[in-house]
């Protein structure tokens, strides 16, 4: 029997029906057409399906859809504020931190999770934090630089607001 789930996705109250065996990734992509979250492996090894669940970074392929009842889910589709890109998104573009782009949404979600808790990450911290997000195109160099660059810009912007 299908389950009726009510949750918040990117700040919007969202309802959907799903089987108990369906993953959050399936529901996001197939039921809700939020295809920005990608499936690269289905086993939690590549990070392409990264989303935030109640402010925690998760692989949505490892979360059952029924688990998100009364929760808060944030996906790549909610990262920009209207037509204003998040500094990370802007930084990825400016640093050419993507080639094919399939891992990009997952990496952005993961990187945002890092910067939300650690505004001053070192290169090593960035590398270990995103070690769960596979990219086969870039060798990670420009991705790491983009994340470090965004962190700096966000810190400067914060300092600007405070001063």
């Amino acid at each position, binding site marked *: 029997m299908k389950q009726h789930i009510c949750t918040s996705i990117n700040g919007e109250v969202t309802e959907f029906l799903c089987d108990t065996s369906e993953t959050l990734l399936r529901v996001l992509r197939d039921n809700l057409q939020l295809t920005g979250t990608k499936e690269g492996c289905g*086993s939690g090894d590549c990070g392409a399906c990264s989303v935030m669940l109640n402010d925690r970074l998760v692989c949505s392929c490892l979360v059952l859809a029924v688990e998100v009842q009364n929760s808060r889910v944030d996906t*790549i589709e909610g990262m920009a504020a209207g037509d204003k890109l998040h500094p990370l998104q802007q930084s990825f573009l400016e640093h050419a931190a993507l080639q094919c782009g399939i891992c990009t*949404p997952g990496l952005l979600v993961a990187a945002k999770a890092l910067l939300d808790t650690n505004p001053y990450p070192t290169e090593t911290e960035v590398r270990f934090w995103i070690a769960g997000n596979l990219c086969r195109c870039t060798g990670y160099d420009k991705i790491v630089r983009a994340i470090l660059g965004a962190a700096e810009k966000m810190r400067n912007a914060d300092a600007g607001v405070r001063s």
Partner: protein
Amino acid sequence: MSHSAGPTLRSVGTRPIRPDGIDKVTGCAVFGADFNLPDALHGAVLRSPFAHARILSIDISKALALSGVKAVVTASDLPEISGEQALTNDQPPDFRDMSANILARGKVLYDGHAIAAIAAVDEETASRALQLIDVEYEVLPHVIDVQQAMEPDAPVLHENMITQGITPAPERSSNIASRYEQVHGDVELGFSQADIILTEEFTTQPVHQAYIEPHACMARVASDGQTEIWCSSQGQFMVRAYCARLLDMPLSQIRVIPLEIGGGFGGKTTVYLEPLAVLLARRSGRPVKMEMSRADVFRATGPASGSYINMKIGARKDGTLVAAQGILCYQAGAFAGSPVRLGCMTAFAPYDIANVKMIGYDVVANRPKSAAYRAPGAPMAAFAAESLIDMLAQRLAMDPIELRIKNAVRQGARSASGFNFKEIGYLETLEAARVHPHYTAPLGKNQGRGVASGYWFNMGGQSSASITLNEDGTVLVATGNPDIGGSRASMALMAAEVLGIDVGLVRPQIVDTSSIAYSDLTGGSRVTFAVGMAVTQAATEMVAELQRRAATVWNVPVEQVLWRDGCAVANIEGNNERLSLSALAARAGKTGGPVAAHVSLDAQGAGPGFGTHICDVEVDPDTGRVTVLRYTAVQDVGKAVHPSYVEGQLQGGAAQGIGWALNEAYLYDENGAQLNPGFLDYRIPVASDLPMIDTVLVEVPNPRHPFGVRGVGEVPIIPPLGAVANAVSRASGARHVDLPMCPPAVLKAMQRAARKSR
């Protein structure tokens, strides 16, 4: 026409944000699995659990009877392709093999080989139906390893496989599909002149391209047979041509709509799912969507060939190479067609050696059919050659870059595969590597530095581009080649350069097979060079047309009209007249109608590419674990159109090569079933495995491209295997000849070397 690759360029060589960037950072870009149609069925594939077995019978009746199942197909639903029809103009691919690869015919040849495909209303029904297909097998002995597959008593995959390239032809069938020989000079004579001869055996494992996006497609077939396919691939025209051949359909009946491609690296230069989706859609009357799981990708697609290589070089005491010889055995997978020939041609291409003899064997084994992977065939051959060059440098106590400079091919030199090099920049990469601060930085304990070079032909080929001037002066550039790593940006930059306008006014589009003339696929490092040439010529034609339009407006001979900075200019009766692109666009309706240009060409003159990499590693003497400390990739790129994406190619290729060298390998159980078809156990490099990868873009222009472009995508995966191995060998004091250099293997080699030296 020729544009000098100098400081006068205003767009080419700059780093604008890529035109498809916003879509890709916001999740809007539509990749292979992201496209949906209402009413689409879910397609699934039944795969062999055996490495080698005869299919005695397939009973689909129970599966068909399951409620929700709309179609089931097996090999008997594919048109039979005879031996005579298999090739096109004697050129690969072999469509009979391709057909038998997408659905097994008579025998299954590897674990994961597709046997049947099914379309059902949902995923759950489809997977239940798969279990209801009854296949009766006669399991046969199998062979996985390339050397074992060459043994006379090895299980034979194809009963009719008689080795080609041997006279007289062998009487018995074997797993050796063909023998290739390439000779120039006289190696016997060459080795007799050598003061030092070094011989070594090398092995490399098959490695997967490991694009993060699994294969996916959607097909819809109308009742009159008109077929649409949405998929991610390295060539929409390739998908159209292959589907037409495999399904015996006219090209005009198929339209392939390219979706964004989530990595390919050569692995998406063929079809697996698309013909099955078309068959199922045709049979069911509904659209069918198919997606591979990651396990499917590992079990049934790719990889690059594994290899066994026996190689020998001879040199004089001063380091001059006088002879080289190699026997290369490449594992093709279940069907013939490894790139062993390309390995033979590229291994010693960087060196001016008078006598070279290379013999290649293309060998089948019970593994997935190998597919192109970035510079197909070259990395493993270069690993062997560059290891030997390093061993020679050690023997002579010579600097490894000096030794390479001494022997480097220069303009006019004859390549190891027989042709003469024109303008090349190999020497320049060696000089740049030598003066790079990395090369002289101090090393610590258990650390070593390795150097290696690589060569790739680079390709041109058939390419098409259409340019359209919009009414407001913006420009559309349409091409038929999927953008894997930023080629839209390159196309826009080249068009903007010729038109003399801001790149932001140019919108590049990748269009479907019914919207533009044919283009060869995206591969061989050809798009920026060859499609770029088509774009440049189309833009040039548009400029000529705009000059004619301006001449009409001013009522002067066209010869009087020049094109400068995006404007038609003319000096008319002492006055400097000027009409901008947008002004001309606005008047197009009154000066002859819409302005557009289309160019289709067969681009010749791809400039060869050379790269030299430097790698520092540290080897843990207790565990054999290798850490890459520093990495620098130097490459002659001709002219970097968008330098950031050129650097990205170098960095990505280097990372893939590091994975090939240190980590990646398939594991099989005793029954020939793959043990690690997932990213947990088939471990590609992750961010914490790698340092920053420094790049040096050397620009020796290719005179046969308007902006001097050479292809850049393939070369960077060639040097890393040797560079890492040479670094590990120097750090550990033991020569490493088998890849991957995983910790147990490194430890073993170190222990063996220690025993020997005692």
